């Protein structure tokens, strides 16, 4: 297989910088669908939904991180992912995930108008998809 060109990828959560390294490809759960970012990608800025970010490092390793919303800033020279909260898939805390789902459920129930309710329900749906995806893995 031909080695793809590497580019700089950074995964940042408010608490710390999780990843900053040369990677070949990153799969990002964009708000409007998953996207794979490789070197020389056109500049895009997108919000991301809760999901799994798959990072293929220049060394050929594959790492997976769970992110809970945020956004990605993609430039030809690199990609920065600002996640609201991010953990490596191996370290995911099921109880924490369950708590988030519970919170989302309450948010959906408490929503005052249709717009915020549909938003909360959408978020809840994304979370449950994520949970089932993780359970399957």
């Amino acid at each position, binding site marked *: 297989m031909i080695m793809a060109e590497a580019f700089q990828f950074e995964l940042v959560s*408010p*608490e710390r910088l999780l990843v900053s390294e040369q990677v070949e490809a990153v799969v990002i759960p964009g708000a409007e669908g998953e996207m794979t970012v490789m070197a020389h990608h056109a500049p895009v800025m997108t919000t991301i939904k809760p999901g799994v970010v798959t990072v293929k490092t220049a060394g050929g390793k594959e790492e997976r991180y769970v992110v809970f919303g945020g956004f990605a800033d993609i430039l030809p020279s690199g990609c920065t992912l600002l996640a609201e909260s991010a953990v490596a898939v191996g370290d995911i805390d099921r109880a924490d995930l369950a708590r988030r789902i519970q919170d989302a459920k309450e948010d959906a129930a408490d929503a005052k108008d249709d717009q915020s309710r549909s938003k909360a329900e959408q978020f809840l749906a994304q979370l449950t998809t994520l949970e089932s995806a993780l359970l399957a893995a």
Partner: protein
Amino acid sequence: MPSLKDLRNRIASVKATQKITKAMQMVAAAKLRRAQEAAEAARPYSERMGLVLANITQAIGGGGDAPALMTGTGKDDVHLLVVCTAERGLCGGFNSQIARLARDHIRRLLADGKQVKIICVGKKGYDILRRDYGSMILERIDLREVKTLGFVNADAIARKVIYLFGEGGFDICTLFYSQFKSVISQIPTAQQIIPAGVASAPAEATVGGNAVYEYEPEPGEILADLIPRNISVQVFRALLENAAGEMGAKMSAMDNATRNAGDMINKLSITYNRQRQAQITKELIEIISGAEAL
């Protein structure tokens, strides 16, 4: 005149106090290091957030679709002050400095005929402000139970503020906290977070901004998502700076206390020795004069 026994007790108690302050200083030093690390670890996120924000505002070009959180309500009648202080005392002038800044600000606003609302984060600020402005305090947020400050804590505060703004509870929100400069210097700071002054983003922040971005979804929508998050980040940064500042202030306060206790022990020991000497002399005189009388 205290007796020898009294002096001995005093010295023992001051020594015990010194041990405590010394221990507190060391604990503060360890916590300070951790707080500093946390503050440093959080820096990349807020920096990049600033970059992204600058890029996107440039793209929108101050168009009419900027969210209200950015442009404000167009009035400045009701001010919300979020005053962040420590949960515990024994850290020198740290809390009172922040409270003083907030109080000056409140006084100025009230003199201008504005309405003031306060949210206190941390017990100490609440205790100080309650005396004069108790009726203005909307809420007191307690972080005492929080062991390690997480983004969720900041997010919860920011959400409350944004919710209030949505309800039309205030026009301008200012965040009060202490900027951590060094162990001996923390600078109380007032920072306006709503409406967010993005215009102050540094010029070099737009490097790479000449590229034409594609936005998914629309820029306005992203911005609407981004601004509240940015407020959370600002609050988070303030809390982290405060945590580091508190520990720094505590460390130097306890260092001073330890030194003062040392001085006190020295002085007391001198008095003690002098008195002991005086007593020995007195006893000798008694013996000698007794012998002479024989």
